[in-house]
């Protein structure tokens, strides 16, 4: 390309040459010879050098975009502008094309979710907002995914922040503020706390109505921080309106009274024009003020600002909100609103109701005109007596009210704490979740509805808290916690029997505990101060006390130490090793690696470093070898007896001053490998079977102070660190298998149990056993190519039948989980399978239009074939198994007599495909959900149809009657599980939480729980009576098509298009929960007012721990 008449190349070509991109030969030679081009080229290069000097991390600082780029395109909406760019995402103003309505759309910032926690947070926000149906809370219209980013659509509020809104006077300000309180209270009733209430989060529209925004929760509970940027632990909320408990960072204390505080601060600001505490000058002062200083009197502030006078009642209300002590604030936003209304009406406010003088004054003021007119002391006296009698009546009334509202407030508080705990768990903040949930579980005694307890999943506490813990222990499989308090176990090693645990405290107490926490054996060892970090031999016969200054090897029953090594060459215990058997002891001392026989004490060998100083030592399990690492990472193994060096891998690292030496060595059980926790590396595993040994690096770096343990089969390596994390690696590949937070601080020791299925760790907060393995509460039947559509249990629960695309019946034994396949000459997809309640018949509906019925053996020849003109979506028996209803795609429900295969009735009236049809328990009615969103109920005797709900834009998919026939539970495209009252034909409750279309549901045999599955593969469990979410079962990767509780209610089976059937053991984590009861009761004991409650818990735990795992 030649640009100009002079033959000089254009600037874009020169630009390329400046970047050393090869250009055409003739151009390059021209530039070389043309002075003008050379000059231009130098200019360009100088410019580029100038720019690159400003580059940070390879990019130039970029000023904020002048024109925001709306890279996002959301179907159905026209983006108008970007309103706000925040931590979570970007908010746009947009117009909905269909309605021309102004909306705000919030889109996650980083395209596809950066982390699971982000995703969970976003989904939670959507869920929360869609539950809060209140005129003063910004409503959610729509939510979805676009290009991997989630978004949701809210009302756009064209208005101003609360503190900028015009008002005619105090009255209007308070009127508006009461509406805000009511909105916040409505959210509290749903168990949602705002945590970041401030004027900018409350917008006042043109009509003067306030709208509370950003019920996001997100600011409150950060995700598990992995990047350094988020590691600082962001302050939650906005300083001027933040409560003391938020400032303190006591997230477990944050509850709905936190919002009451913020409301108080807002009211303070609205009326005085100032903030309760000055946060403008020094952050530290501001924090101190919020934590300790009493707020100034609003009336004084208002006066100083030249604002209208503030009545001392109003002042009392504000100051009550701003109390440092949560107990002294209004206990809910509703109470605050009530008192403000009383104030507006000139009635006595609650905040001062204790004071009779106050009441008198109040009443006098109300009647002051008349009082003045009478002008007589007598009148005053009369008024006083009237007031007193009124007061007396009123106080008894108030007392009753207070008792009633106290009970409902306690419930409200509990619900919101549980919700917080669940959220904390979902976001990976497990310590906090555990603390919150156990508190609620143990402090709020729950009586299990009517009748006797079903015996499982029915601990004496609120079921929501229980199930939140169920979910928590699924993520963090802690089997049990033993509190050795007040003595903290520092060292621990699993005993020779593979179950019991030898522990040693820093004060020199050596103890043997059974797995259930019983003390079996123990003896003291004299230790000097400061406290020691002990090492133990497996049978507890030998111990090493390490004191920082030196160490002593001791044998049980001997007063004097066998050896004293002093001074210690390192601040890390990796310079010592006591072999598992206790027969050998090794230490790095006097610059050498020395190995002793312990009984009788005798030095066996001494090895000297060749180059760098030694830094860590370990003895093999067979006591024959010793491994040593030097400061530079060089690694050597000697045979102790022959004193020959059998392996050596020198380090390629140069000597550096800063090279850190710590990190213990640990032989694998078969002594073929050595785990090397050298702190300069992520951690590595040496393979001793080759010479020189090769090292496999662990894929994830643990923190400092690592302790390690191999599983007994040598396949896994568990590494724990200062941060309380346990990471389990595949010992061959170094791949990470799992990771969890085990303790709130440093993990002192880690040790696999003998069967390799558990790990014991010790830390400041006790000794804990962890389950190792993959999601053990689930078992899976995976059939490649099979897209499962339906399933049912045999009546005795011994067999699980599943069907799908391949047109055969899969029969899976519940005890052995072995699957047999029954082919019966059908090659069409089977859409549904049903077992009659008496167990006598099995029916299957197919896409070919044939329904097959077996009565007797379930084999290749079904007893009956019922033909239909179109494909079948569903089949269902009535309760006694005499009738079969089929949902056919010709929009007709047919009811067949099972005994002879005659068609009893055709039910018409549906306008489209019916995904499911069910008999009611009386057998007199048949209900069906229709793709067009309608819910139809037929009278079987007459064939008359009732439309309970007409066509809607979202399809209905699934329905179930409760066993008593009083409720009908329905799910579908509206993403909520709707509970209908059959008698009133009205939807009485909606369970919201699914983010995708609901395809199936089932009700547990005891009627307490509902399970629902969606097209995203998510299953949710709900408490039916309390209409509360219990748990989310994630694992399926495609639509869940059918769900069925086992007849005993202990397991739930799910069929999915992801080619699998899963059975979920709903009791699995009972044992984990039971294993914590003792430790949690101890932690909470001082607050426990009800000793019977504690006893009930201990009984429940004991009974649960005795029960066996399901499979």
């Amino acid at each position, binding site marked *: 390309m030649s640009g100009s008449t002079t033959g000089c190349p254009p600037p874009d070509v020169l630009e390329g040459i400046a970047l050393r991109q090869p250009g055409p030969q003739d151009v390059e030679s021209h530039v070389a010879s043309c002075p003008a081009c050379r000059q231009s080229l130098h200019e360009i290069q100088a410019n580029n050098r100038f720019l690159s000097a400003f580059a940070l991390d390879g990019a130039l600082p970029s000023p904020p975009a002048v024109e925001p780029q709306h890279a996002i395109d959301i179907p159905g909406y026209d983006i108008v502008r970007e309103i706000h760019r925040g931590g979570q995402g970007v908010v746009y103003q947009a117009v909905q094309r269909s309605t021309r309505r102004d909306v705000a759309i919030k889109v996650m910032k980083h395209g596809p979710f950066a982390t699971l926690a982000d995703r969970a947070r976003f989904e939670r926000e959507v869920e929360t907002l869609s539950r809060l149906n209140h005129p003063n809370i910004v409503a959610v219209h729509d939510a979805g995914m676009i290009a991997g980013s989630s978004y949701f659509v809210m009302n756009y509020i064209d208005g101003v922040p609360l503190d900028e809104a015009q008002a005619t006077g105090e009255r209007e300000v308070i009127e508006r503020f009461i509406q805000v309180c009511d909105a916040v209270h409505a959210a509290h009733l749903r168990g949602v706390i705002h945590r970041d209430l401030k004027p900018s989060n409350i917008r006042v529209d043109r009509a003067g109505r306030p709208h509370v925004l950003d019920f996001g929760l997100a600011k409150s509970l950060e995700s598990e921080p992995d990047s350094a940027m988020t590691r600082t632990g962001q302050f939650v909320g906005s300083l001027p309106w933040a409560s003391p408990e938020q400032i303190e960072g006591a997230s477990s204390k944050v509850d709905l009274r936190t919002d009451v505080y913020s409301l108080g601060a807002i009211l303070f600001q609205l009326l005085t024009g100032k903030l309760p505490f000055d946060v403008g000058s020094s*952050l530290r002062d501001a924090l101190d003020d919020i934590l300790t200083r009493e707020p100034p009197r609003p009336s004084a502030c208002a006066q100083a600002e030249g604002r209208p006078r503030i009545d001392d009642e109003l002042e009392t209300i504000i100051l009550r909100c701003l109390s440092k002590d949560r107990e002294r604030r209004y206990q809910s936003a509703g109470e605050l609103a009530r008192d403000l209304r009383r104030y507006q009406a000139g009635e006595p406010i609650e905040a001062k109701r204790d004071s009779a003088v106050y009441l008198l004054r109040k009443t006098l003021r109300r009647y002051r005109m008349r009082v003045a007119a009478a002008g007589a002391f007598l009148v005053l006296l009369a008024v006083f007596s009237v007031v007193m009698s009124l007061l007396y009546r009123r106080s008894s009334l108030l007392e009753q009210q207070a008792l009633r509202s106290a009970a409902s407030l306690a419930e409200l508080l509990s619900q919101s704490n549980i919700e917080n705990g669940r959220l904390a768990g979902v976001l990976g903040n*497990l310590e906090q979740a555990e603390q919150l949930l156990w508190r609620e579980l143990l402090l709020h005694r729950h009586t299990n509805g009517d009748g006797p307890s079903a015996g499982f999943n029915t601990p004496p506490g609120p079921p929501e808290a229980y199930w939140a813990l169920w979910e928590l222990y699924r993520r963090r499989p802690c089997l049990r916690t033993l509190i050795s308090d007040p003595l903290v176990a520092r060292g621990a090693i699993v005993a020779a029997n593979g179950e019991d645990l030898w522990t040693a405290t820093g004060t020199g107490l050596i103890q043997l505990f059974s797995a259930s926490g019983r003390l079996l054996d123990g003896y003291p060892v004299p230790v000097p101060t400061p406290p020691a970090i002990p090492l133990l031999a497996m049978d507890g016969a030998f111990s090493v006390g390490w004191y920082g200054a030196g160490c002593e090897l001791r044998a049980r029953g001997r007063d004097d130490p066998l050896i004293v090594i002093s001074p210690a060459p390192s601040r890390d215990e990796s310079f010592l090793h006591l072999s598992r058997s206790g027969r050998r002891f090794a230490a790095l001392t006097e610059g050498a690696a020395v190995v002793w026989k312990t009984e009788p004490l005798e030095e066996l060998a001494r090895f000297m470093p060749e180059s760098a100083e030694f830094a860590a030592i370990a003895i093999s399990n067979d006591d024959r070898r010793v491994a040593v690492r030097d400061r530079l990472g060089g690694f050597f193994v000697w045979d102790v007896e022959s004193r020959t060096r059998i392996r050596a891998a020198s380090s390629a690292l140069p000597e550096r001053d800063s090279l850190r030496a710590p990190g213990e060595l640990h032989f694998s059980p078969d002594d073929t490998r050595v785990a090397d926790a050298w702190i300069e590396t992520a951690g590595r595993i040496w393979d001793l079977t080759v010479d020189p040994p090769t090292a496999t690096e662990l894929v994830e770096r643990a923190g400092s102070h690592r302790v390690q343990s191999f599983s007994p089969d040598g396949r896994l390596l568990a590494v724990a660190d200062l941060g309380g994390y346990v990471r389990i690696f595949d010992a061959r590949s170094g791949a990470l298998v799992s990771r969890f937070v085990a303790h709130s601080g440093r993990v002192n020791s880690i040790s696999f149990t003998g069967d390799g299925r558990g790990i014991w760790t010790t830390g400041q907060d006790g000794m804990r056993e962890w389950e190792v393995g993959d999601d053990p509460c689930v078992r899976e039947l995976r059939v490649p190519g099979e897209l499962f559509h339906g399933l049912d249990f045999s009546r005795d629960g011994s067999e699980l039948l599943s069907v799908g695309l391949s047109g055969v019946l899969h029969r899976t034994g519940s005890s052995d989980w072995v699957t047999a396949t029954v082919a019966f000459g059908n090659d069409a997809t089977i859409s549904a399978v049903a077992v009659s309640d008496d167990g006598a018949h099995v029916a299957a509906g197919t896409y070919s239009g044939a329904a097959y019925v077996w009565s007797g053996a379930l084999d290749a020849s079904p007893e009956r074939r019922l033909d239909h003109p179109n494909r079948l979506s569903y089949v269902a028996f009535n309760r006694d198994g005499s009738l079969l209803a089929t949902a056919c795609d010709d929009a007709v429900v047919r009811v067949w007599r099972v005994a002879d295969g005659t068609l009893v009735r055709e039910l018409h009236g549906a306008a489209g495909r019916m995904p499911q049809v069910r008999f009611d328990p009386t057998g007199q009615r048949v209900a069906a959900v229709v793709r067009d969103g309608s819910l139809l109920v037929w009278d079987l005797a007459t064939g008359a149809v009732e439309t309970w709900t007409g066509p809607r834009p979202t399809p209905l998919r699934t329905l179930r009657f409760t066993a008593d026939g009083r409720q009908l539970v329905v799910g579908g495209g509206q993403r909520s599980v709707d509970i209908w009252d059959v008698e009133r034909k009205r939807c009485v409750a909606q369970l919201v939480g699914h983010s995708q279309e609901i395809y199936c549901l089932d009700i547990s045999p005891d009627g307490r729980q509902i399970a629902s599955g969606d097209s995203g593969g998510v299953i949710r469990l709900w408490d039916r009576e309390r209409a509360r979410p219990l748990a989310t079962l994630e694992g399926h990767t495609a639509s869940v098509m059918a769900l069925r509780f086992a007849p005993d209610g202990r397991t739930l089976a799910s069929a999915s298009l992801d080619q699998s059937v899963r059975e979920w053991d709903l009791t699995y984590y009972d044992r984990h929960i039971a294993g914590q009861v003792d430790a949690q009761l101890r932690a909470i004991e001082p607050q426990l007012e009800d000793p019977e409650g504690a006893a009930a818990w201990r009984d429940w735990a004991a009974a649960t721990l005795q029960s066996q795992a399901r499979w």
Partner: protein
Amino acid sequence: MNLRRGAPGTASITNTTTELLDGLHDSGNRAAWDEFDRRYRPILIAFLRRMGLDETDAADVAQDTLTCFVQDYRARKYVREHGRLRSWLIGIARCRLADLRRLKGRRRELRGESAITEMPNDSDADAIWEAEKRRVVFLQAVAELRETTRFNERTIQAFERVVLRHEPVESVSAELGLSAQEIYNAKNRVVERLREIVARYEADA
């Protein structure tokens, strides 16, 4: 000294430090304080952001640091011969940062993380400071360029999009209706002007 100021809001860093520091002693000299604030606050905030604070916290700590500095300075605690202004500011910022982190440490412990956060050592902190300072200088230069030059909006946009935001020349060319040649010409003209501005800043400092 003839100060060529940018438009309001685009902080100028053209005063000499000595002059500025002298002015700070006088508590009535609002201009000196404003200038000091304009010069150092953006750098402090950027520095604290690099230390891992979010926007709000960084702004809070920067505020705290600046007020603390001026108090100390007026109390004659800062002696210029004993160290660079930069180190003094970094020192205060780090103390405030540590305070803030201590406050939050408990939460982190609760979550099972280590409560100990790595603080960069002095030479790292200096390097971060310098990098952030250069960044601020650059952005201020770009802002001044925008406010004070005769370049038309399309020229500046072409520069920003191609050079600062790394957008492909082809798409910028299509959207702005400029040829590739024009875009590169624009780039070089803008960069030359930026070099002049930055050179002036450096001469002044």
